[in-house]
């Protein structure tokens, strides 16, 4: 039950994009088409879960016993960067189809603040191992949900008559604001 609460809360209530503002760059950049948004979402979910597992391990098994918590930021970013490289090589060797779908998004993920954000927030909230995994997976799916919804709306917006200064980023942010408003409706779900 407790895991379900963490999952739902990361997925809907504290959606990473719409209420923590993490991963805004890909959210604005890759949300033109539903297919590419979906691929990006899955790539992020995958790396996010892996990164959270590895950084949980490093933090609790290496940094805490040796009292090196201040190295948290440096070590997490290195973990994520090398993890992304490893995943890219692994996918390229084992599954060319998957590589075709996710390939170009993987390098972008290194500088995606959502990934580092998950690792940092899991430490900040003091989650145990299983909680961290559930939290990261829920957050990844929440990111996917938000970016796919946004892509769907933007495909429709292409045909709309928008005042020229608001074309592009302007209308995207305002749409995101309205999406964030609707997501606030979920906040009563868990007390």
């Amino acid at each position: 039950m407790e895991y379900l609460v963490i999952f739902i809360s990361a997925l809907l209530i504290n959606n990473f994009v719409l209420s923590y503002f993490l991963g805004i760059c890909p959210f604005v950049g890759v949300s033109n088409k539903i297919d590419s948004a979906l691929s990006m979402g899955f790539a992020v979910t995958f790396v996010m879960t892996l990164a959270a597992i590895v950084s949980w391990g490093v933090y609790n098994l290496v940094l805490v016993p040796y009292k090196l918590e201040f190295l948290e930021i440096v070590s997490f970013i290195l973990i994520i960067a090398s993890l992304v490289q490893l995943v890219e090589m692994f996918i390229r060797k084992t599954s060319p189809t998957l590589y075709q779908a996710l390939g170009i998004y993987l390098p972008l993920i290194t500088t995606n603040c959502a990934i580092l954000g998950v690792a940092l927030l899991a430490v900040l909230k003091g989650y145990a191992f299983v909680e961290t995994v559930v939290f990261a997976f829920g957050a990844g799916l929440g990111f996917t949900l938000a970016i796919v919804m946004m892509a769907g709306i933007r495909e429709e917006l292409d045909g709309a008559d928008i005042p020229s200064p608001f074309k592009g980023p302007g209308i995207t942010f305002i749409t995101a604001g309205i999406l964030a408003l609707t997501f606030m409706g979920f906040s009563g779900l868990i007390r």
Partner: protein
Amino acid sequence: MKEKSLGAEFIKGLWKENPVLVMLLGLCPTLAVTNSVNNAIGMIGAVFFVLTCSSIMVSIVKDLVPSQVRIATYIVIIATFVTVADRFLAAYFPELSKALGPYVPLIVVNCIILGRQEAFASRHGLVESIADALGMSCGFGIALLLLSSVREILGNGTWMGIKIVKGWFTPWQVMILPAGAFLALGVLVGIVHFLMDRKS
């Protein structure tokens, strides 16, 4: 390419190449910490420190670093300065540090900082890099101050915690919520585009 003066390197970050409003970089902290002017100022200070120090460092070591590992090197340099900023805030401004939460460590992946190292500090000398870093942090500061002022005044009726609108005005609570951040930034970006279109 013609050599630009130091002043020009500084000025371009303020408006024409404003990192937030025009280039749309570093949006995570921009949206997340602008619910009050105080938080925004804390974030501006941290970004100013990290950007300037990393630019100095990168422009010093740029010839020593092989180009294959340059991104990794920049990230480690940035992460080091972010750690310094994070520890400093936690030690001297514990309340601010708590309010900013994970967004101080997240400066590491702020696209403005890595972007400036890659696009500018790694190709220019020390003095130009400093001018560029100062300009970019001021541009970032201007954007954050604008956005946080709008949000705090409309959302709470205060500015830096001082009450400025009284009586008849009902604060628009939505402006300090996440949704308000997106709405305010959308309108602000629209206004900037409008002004730029009219000028050209």
